[in-house]
């Protein structure tokens, strides 16, 4: 019997970056298979290749025995492959029932029918009703999709995918950004679905993965690292290492922080995007001169927390963010920057056409004040010292990361917000970074960083806060970070 899905030698690169590097995979059909891997492992690219959102550079994809490597996305849907997206992807201004009617009509080859009213097609209506009932949205049929709660919209997306009556359903982080109740509901739905359709799942939430999957595939740096039962994956040393980080980074000696009033106080921070409620009542403080790490897996709200602090994602009403005692919640980003908060996004956001030196000058010019010099930066990040005249787009990922941090330091901020500083970096660069952070705090800069890598946090932070699903669930002081890490490992590892 041929496999439902058979992938051979799949390969995809973007410019110089190889996202998927020769992956082979066969799914016999039935059950739930989970694809996991740390950030940047290539999971989403893999799904995009399977479903035709991206064209593969090499390799073949066979589905149900037929070659589909060159088919358009919609043709693959007709062949029986449906998917959901990492970021909720519905038709926001259409009512829920019309959302679902779109794929139903497409499947029954009536998308282009111009003469009949679609709302008078009884069979369509009935099927839409059935699908909405399946995902538990029967009550919301007439609502506009945009006003649904985040969890409901994710369910709607699943209904959209199911409407194509797929043989294979690909779910990209179906529970990302969900509250506990919503997540439970979603897990039940997925479990129930598994009886009818083969499911391929990409997920960060290990509770979800281990609660659902019968088979787990681990991707790392575009390659298939491990493939097996949940139990075998849990015990795989290589998998542990890529998730918790290299043990080789030694913890740096840190001075005790926290003298005087806290620099930053966050109280009841709620934030999100449209109807998606990401942060729930987040409260914490950062002492002056300290390094605090926000830990947590992908999609738990770390980035949103930092963006809210930087003013890029406005906090919702009732949130309080005090910097040196003054409320900055809801201020525009440039005002917050002027108050001494610098932000380094996880995707670096280097200005591609500007040279490294010019990138560094932007904040100096914008805020009309100096602080650090290029020499000081060069001492902090030696690899940058020879690259000043190179354009941002021609720097490697690690160089860009250093440059992004350097750029944030130029105006001598009082608070540095670092999103995923260690992500995707070589051990050498990580070591440079650890040393640099030690130096930075010596300069009196307070750091709040968000990372997935426990080892990195251990090396640099004197306090760690663990986030799960938009909430802070655990706080570890330096002693706990260095000492018993079992709780942290449970929260962060697979």
């Amino acid at each position, binding site marked *: 019997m041929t496999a439902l899905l058979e992938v051979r030698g799949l390969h995809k690169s973007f410019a110089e970056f190889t996202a998927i590097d020769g992956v082979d995979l066969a799914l016999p059909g039935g059950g739930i298979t989970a694809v996991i891997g740390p950030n940047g492992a290539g999971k989403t690219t893999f799904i995009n290749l399977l479903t035709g959102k991206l064209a593969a550079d090499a390799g073949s994809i066979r589905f149900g025995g037929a070659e589909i490597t060159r088919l358009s996305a919609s043709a693959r849907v007709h062949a029986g492959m449906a998917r959901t997206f990492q970021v909720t992807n519905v038709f926001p201004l259409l009512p829920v029932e019309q959302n679902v009617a779109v794929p139903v009509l497409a499947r029954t080859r009536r998308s282009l029918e111009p003469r009949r009213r679609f709302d008078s097609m009884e069979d369509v209506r009935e099927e839409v009703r059935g699908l909405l009932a399946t995902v538990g949205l029967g009550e919301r049929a007439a609502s506009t999709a945009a006003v649904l709660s985040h969890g409901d919209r994710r369910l709607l997306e699943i209904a959209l995918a199911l409407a194509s009556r797929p043989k294979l359903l690909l779910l990209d982080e179906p529970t990302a950004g969900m509250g506990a109740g919503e997540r439970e509901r979603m897990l039940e739905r997925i479990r129930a679905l598994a009886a009818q359709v083969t499911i391929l799942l990409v997920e960060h939430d290990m509770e979800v993965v281990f609660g659902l999957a019968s088979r787990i595939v681990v991707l790392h740096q575009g390659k298939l690292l491990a493939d097996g039962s949940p139990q075998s994956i849990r015990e795989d040393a290589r998998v542990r290492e890529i998730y918790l980080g290299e043990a080789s980074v030694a913890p740096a000696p840190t001075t005790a922080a926290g003298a005087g009033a806290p620099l930053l106080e966050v109280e009841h921070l709620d934030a999100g995007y449209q109807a998606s409620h990401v942060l729930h009542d987040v409260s914490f403080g950062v002492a002056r001169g300290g390094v605090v790490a926000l830990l947590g897996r992908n999609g738990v709200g770390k980035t949103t927390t930092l963006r809210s602090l930087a003013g890029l994602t406005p906090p919702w009403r009732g949130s309080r963010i005090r910097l040196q005692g003054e409320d900055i919640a809801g201020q525009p980003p440039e005002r917050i920057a002027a108050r001494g908060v610098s932000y380094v996004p996880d995707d670096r956001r280097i200005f591609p*056409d500007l040279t490294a030196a010019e990138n560094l000058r932007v904040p100096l*010019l914008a805020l009309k004040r100096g602080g650090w010099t290029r020499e000081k930066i060069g001492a902090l990040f030696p690899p940058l010292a020879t690259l000043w005249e190179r354009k941002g787009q021609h720097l490697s990922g690690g160089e860009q990361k250093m440059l992004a941090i350097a750029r944030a330091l130029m105006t001598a901020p009082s608070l540095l917000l670092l999103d995923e500083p260690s992500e995707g970096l070589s051990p050498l660069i990580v070591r440079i970074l650890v040393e640099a952070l030690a130096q930075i705090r010596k300069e009196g800069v307070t750091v709040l960083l968000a990372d997935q890598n426990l080892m990195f946090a251990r090396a640099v932070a004197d306090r760690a806060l663990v986030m799960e699903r938009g909430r802070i669930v655990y706080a570890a002081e330096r002693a706990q970070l260095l000492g018993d890490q079992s709780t942290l490992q449970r929260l962060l590892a697979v």
Partner: protein
Amino acid sequence: MLFQGLVGLSEAMYLWLVAAGLSLIFGVLRVLNFAHGSLYMLGAYFAWVAFRITGSFWAALLIGPLLVAAVGWGMEYGFLRRVYRVEVAFQLLLTFAFVLIFDDLVKLAFGPVYQSPPTPAALSGAVRIGRSILPTYHLFILAVGAAVGLGLWIFLEKTGFGLIIRATAADREMARALGVRSSRLFTWVFVLGAWLAGLGGALSMPVRAISPGMGEFIIIEAFVVVVLGGLGSLRGAFVGALLIGLLHAYGLVFMPVFELALAYIAMAAVLIVRPWGLFGAREA
């Protein structure tokens, strides 16, 4: 035949000045300013008024564009900034309303008759190139166009303000997170763009008839140039303007039947092959 190209290039310089402002504004503000041709018209009228008062072409060249820059400030500060968050089509409609308003205001103020002060004596000569004669004014325009190109390049590449503009054009959100006050920057960029259009108009004053509605003939060509070169790319606007100038000059000689359509054929061809234009950034 080379001479014909030179003439085409000199014609292209007016287009370049208008297109440069249009492209700059689009690159930073993401607004397609339909009224940019009207700013060119205002440049010509203001320069003419300044000329009548001062009697000096050079003073007119200085004052006219500055007054247009002031109008640009009013447009951005008073109106455009209220619509940055609405759909592009409505922004286009807003700037189109300005086209209508400026046309009639100019007619109210100056009447519908043609105005055309004499070409300044210092520039009304000509130089002989082979068997052909090139007016000094055309050389002057070529020099001014090149100088503005060079000046803009220096301004954008070598000055702090230029750096901020480039950074904001590339990534508005990140620039703000680094402290760039974008709303003020938008105003200044619009003012600069308006000044460029005004300069184009002021330069055209002594050699082209000034009349209400004169901006409408240039705005669509400026759109073509900007789209051809790549939206938001100044280098693209420069090359695009030269290309249209040359196409026009040589098209007249070799394919006069197609003169009307050449610019559009070029635009359609480029868009089909490279939708983001010759020098534009490819959008994901």
